[in-house]
């Protein structure tokens, strides 16, 4: 499974990618913001994206992905510090499939990932 990890923090991308690799996911692509991620969508089967990023934020990125018929069904998990109910609702309304609030444990990340993939 090809997974796209989008976060402006290189450390957070590394933490998420390391957790995914530990769970057996080796085909991981990284991007530092939504605009960069738009250029790396080819073949992507799952997206994990931050919300607050420079250039193009995560919510705008999600909206752009959902407009593209090729990727409108790709599962998206938002991984963000935005934990207020209004923000969670806004993300879900705009096409996010699942939501993880930072800080998170590796267990939470994998639980949400498996739930999103129906495992």
């Amino acid at each position, binding site marked *: 499974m090809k997974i796209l990890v989008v976060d*402006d*923090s*290189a*450390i*957070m991308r*590394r*933490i998420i990618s*390391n957790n995914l690799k530990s769970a057996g996911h080796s085909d991981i692509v990284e991007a530092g913001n939504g605009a960069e991620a738009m250029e790396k969508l080819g073949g992507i089967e799952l997206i994990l994206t931050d919300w*607050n*990023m*420079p250039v193009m934020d995560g919510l705008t990125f999600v909206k752009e992905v959902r407009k593209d018929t090729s990727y409108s069904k790709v599962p998206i998990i938002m991984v*963000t*510090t*935005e*934990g*207020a*109910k*209004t923000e969670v609702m806004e993300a879900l309304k705009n096409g996010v499939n699942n939501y993880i*609030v*930072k*800080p*998170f*444990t590796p267990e939470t990340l994998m639980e949400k990932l498996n739930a999103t993939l129906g495992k």
Partner: protein
Amino acid sequence: MDVKYISPFVESVYHTMQTMLGEAPKRKEVVMKNDNHAHGDISGIVGFASDKIYGSVALTFPTETAVKCYNMMVGDNVDIITDDVRDTVGELTNIIAGGAKKIYADQELSFDISIPTIVLGKNHVLSHKVGTPVVIVPFVIGEHPFVVEISVKFEKNAAFKSKTPKTEAASAQG
């Protein structure tokens, strides 16, 4: 500044450090800041604002503490401040601000937070909003000190919905 307004940040520090580093820090006595200099070598600072509340929160580490936090988070073994260590300080500041934002939102005091800025150097200057008091909350994680600086200002008629938000920090020492 009333402790209930800084307790969401303190609570977020505990939760963030415990979750990301696997170790909860211990808090020392809170003091008011009376100059612009940081108490460490590297800081992350995040501003926040809305029509009800504005301010900033900064996380300042001595080099050794910043490096230790980075090593604990990713299992690396560096001993100097690298780009990754800088990024770690920024991300921890971002997560702590985000955690406090959620607690404030539960009190119907929403605000937006900025992307973190990193400042480096001995005795570097940390600029909070002019005219707002700054509280220093010192912590130690293991044997390693760090401080959190919090500056919060309310607009007229804005306050917590309840007298004290339900946080562990509200009942913690100090």
